[in-house]
């Protein structure tokens, strides 16, 4: 049997790697993928908790999270395509038009 703590630690490690990806990378697509990684690590923790208390609610919640992530990816990638069309780049450092 795998202790619950191991799953929590793994989820925290994956979440931290996702945070590092968002902070360090400049490619908007990779930042977006790092956000997916964070969502996924949170899902892992929820499923671990849900099977520790032997309840289905956590699994259903994760199902909804996956559906919301799919919606988010559709809109977010459309936005990235639009940004690329207007600026010819998806480097987040270049998106500073509002800077005074």
């Amino acid at each position, binding site marked *: 049997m795998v202790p619950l703590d191991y799953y929590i630690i793994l989820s925290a490690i994956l979440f931290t790697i996702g945070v590092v990806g968002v902070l360090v990378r*400049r490619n908007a697509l990779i930042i977006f993928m790092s956000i997916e990684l964070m969502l996924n690590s949170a899902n892992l923790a929820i499923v671990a908790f849900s*099977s520790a208390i032997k309840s289905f609610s956590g699994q259903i919640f994760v199902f909804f999270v996956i559906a919301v992530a799919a919606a988010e990816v559709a*809109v977010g990638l459309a936005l990235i395509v639009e940004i690329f069309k207007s600026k010819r780049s*998806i*480097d987040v450092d270049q998106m500073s038009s509002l800077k005074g």
Partner: protein
Amino acid sequence: MTFDLALFLVLSLAAIASALGMVLSRNAVYSALYLVLNFITVAVFYLLLGAPFIAMAQVTIYAGAIMVLFLFVIMLLGAENLPASKVLPWQRPLAIGLSGLLFAEAAYLLISKARPSGSILPDAAANTVDNLQQLGLVLFNEYLLPFEVVSILLLVAMVGAIILTKKEKVEQK
């Protein structure tokens, strides 16, 4: 060491290595493929935890649909590699240090304060049709309204994505 624990350790190594590969690789296509690998290992974790429906949803929706969309956009934009530009010298160490801090406090708080009362995990025998049947009953009885709301959300996202990427019609006089 039991078989489950050995499996868990090997899979968690694969998950962490593929996540690091995703963050570190220069080429965005490689990043996307590493992320697919990571999603599939997490799907195997869901099977270990006795959540077969979530595992299948993970493989079909995340590794299948979402990552194909990502690869499509990467190749559409031709954005595999960004041209090098100057980076702030203190940004990278600061980011890694703060993330280490985040990991330490998240792990500490989750383990010490947020654990549920029972901590025994089900074995792989939970991956049965019976399990799926119960999940479906709970989903369509207790959570029917959220399910319908999610369908509206997906419709809104679809319409939004189409409107955002639609070509502007030039006004003809």
